[in-house]
């Protein structure tokens, strides 16, 4: 369908190499919104180049968990390491203290995130969206950023839309701009929070195509998704969450073929 979706990471100088083998290490993460417990001791390790798809019923905490990984949500217990750095907190006399905003911002640079609702900057063109952070955050020269931005947009099939504003783009196009925007920061990890849930059915394919290509090029990815076909085909591991906990995890063939838990079976039977 999209012949352009070829070697996307070439434009950012190839795959950004994570420092260690374990890109994400979440240990016993607890999170509550007031009295509502959303995460009840979630532990997950994601290795370099792995694609992990997180599934589960709505309200199971999967989106919240992914948002904790780049500290868009505070956590009340546990620790999350990305590339060996603890995210959002530092230890002071045995207690966790929230880190300074500047440090958190620095940590987020190497974690790309794609949102369900795209969240493009409305007042900037597609190109403007992509070059904003490289220029502002990394201090890249404008010419260099523009060249990078155009290249990235071309590789997600949007060469002709560089000057378009988000309001002039379809949902699928906006989401591909959002992916290019995240990639422009040369992230070592990509988080996808239900990236196709807000899309019309005919646009889901073009976004999944780009994600599939990223996975093929070795990007480490955590994807919250209801796209079981994508999970089956692309995921190295599928993680089933329910009620704030990881119920089970495993290779897609095993988890979809012989789910160990009744609740996984029930969930899969509803969605497949």
């Amino acid at each position, binding site marked *: 369908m999209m012949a352009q979706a070829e070697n996307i990471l070439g434009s950012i100088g190839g795959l950004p190499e994570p420092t260690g083998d374990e890109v994400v290490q979440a240990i016993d993460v607890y999170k509550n919104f007031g009295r509502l417990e959303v995460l009840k001791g979630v532990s997950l390790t994601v290795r370099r180049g792995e694609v992990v798809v997180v599934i589960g019923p709505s309200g199971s905490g999967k989106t919240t968990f992914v948002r904790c990984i780049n500290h868009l949500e505070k956590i009340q217990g546990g620790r999350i390491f990305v590339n060996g750095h603890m995210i959002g907190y530092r230890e002071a006399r045995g207690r966790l203290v929230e880190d300074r905003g500047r440090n958190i*911002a*620095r940590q*987020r640079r190497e974690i790309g*995130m794609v949102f369900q609702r795209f*969240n493009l*900057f409305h007042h900037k063109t597609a190109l403007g969206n992509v070059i904003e952070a490289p220029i*502002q*955050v990394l201090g890249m020269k404008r010419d260099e950023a523009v060249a990078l931005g155009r290249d990235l947009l071309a590789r997600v099939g949007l060469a002709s839309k560089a000057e378009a504003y988000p309001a002039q783009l379809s949902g699928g196009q906006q989401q591909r701009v*959002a992916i290019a925007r995240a990639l422009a920061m040369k992230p070592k990890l990509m988080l996808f929070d239900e990236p196709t849930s807000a899309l019309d059915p005919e646009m889901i394919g073009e976004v999944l195509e780009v994600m599939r290509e990223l996975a093929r090029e070795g990007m480490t990815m955590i994807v919250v998704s209801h796209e079981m076909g994508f999970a089956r085909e692309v995921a190295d591991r599928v993680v089933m969450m329910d009620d704030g906990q990881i119920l089970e995890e495993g290779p897609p063939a095993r988890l979809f073929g012989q789910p160990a838990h009744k609740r996984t079976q029930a969930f899969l039977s509803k969605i497949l």
Partner: protein
Amino acid sequence: MSFDWPFFWHYLFRPSGAYLHGLMLTVVLSVVAQTLGTILGLFAALGRMSRLTPLRLVVRGYIWIMRGTPLLVQIVFIYTGLAAGGIFRFQDISLGFMTIPGNVQAGLLALSLNEAAYMAEIIRAGIASVDHGQTEAAKSLGMTYGQLMRRIVLPQAARFVIPPLGNEFNAMLKNTTLVSVIGVPELLLTTETLTSATFRVFELYSVVALYYLTLTTIWGWVQARIEAKFGQSTAQAEAVAGFGERLFGRALFGAARSKA
């Protein structure tokens, strides 16, 4: 009815030097107070939305007091009240080429502080109008609070803020009359001085009314142009960003670009 037409025409079209000075003072006071009020209002708006509860409470208290008491009372309080209480007396400041009298400083301060409270609420609403998802996206790209405010949120809030800002400036042009009570020789006080010398109240107040009407009409025209230019259409979104950057970005945050 007694209306001295020749007198009226004379003062309308051949204003004295003192009168023109009053007019200039009115315009300068309005522009400076609105500018300071907007800048201060921006910080008050950010403080009002801060995560720090004490800061939030202080700003709320400030807005509560400034909006809940008459501007006239604030002006007299700041200039005459503080001096009478032995707390602070405004002294003339000499800049070499000009002198800023104490009462002008006090008037300017009162107008700015008062305006800041109103602008804070307007800017807060403007910031709230920018959907939170963009803030999260900016954060996820590693932008700091300052960067995301300056580059993402405020340029878009500006579009929302510009129409009420125009109305505020219209009100400001007229509110400057209040500093006449502390002896600032702006347009109204100049008129009063003339009145006490000539007793031509009807004619002179007609003249001064027309002067204010002219000022607000000119501003209304400028405002309409600005709003037309920075309307909602997508094609002009770029221009909006440019204006927002000029209004909030460059002016406030200077060259503090991406030092990281």
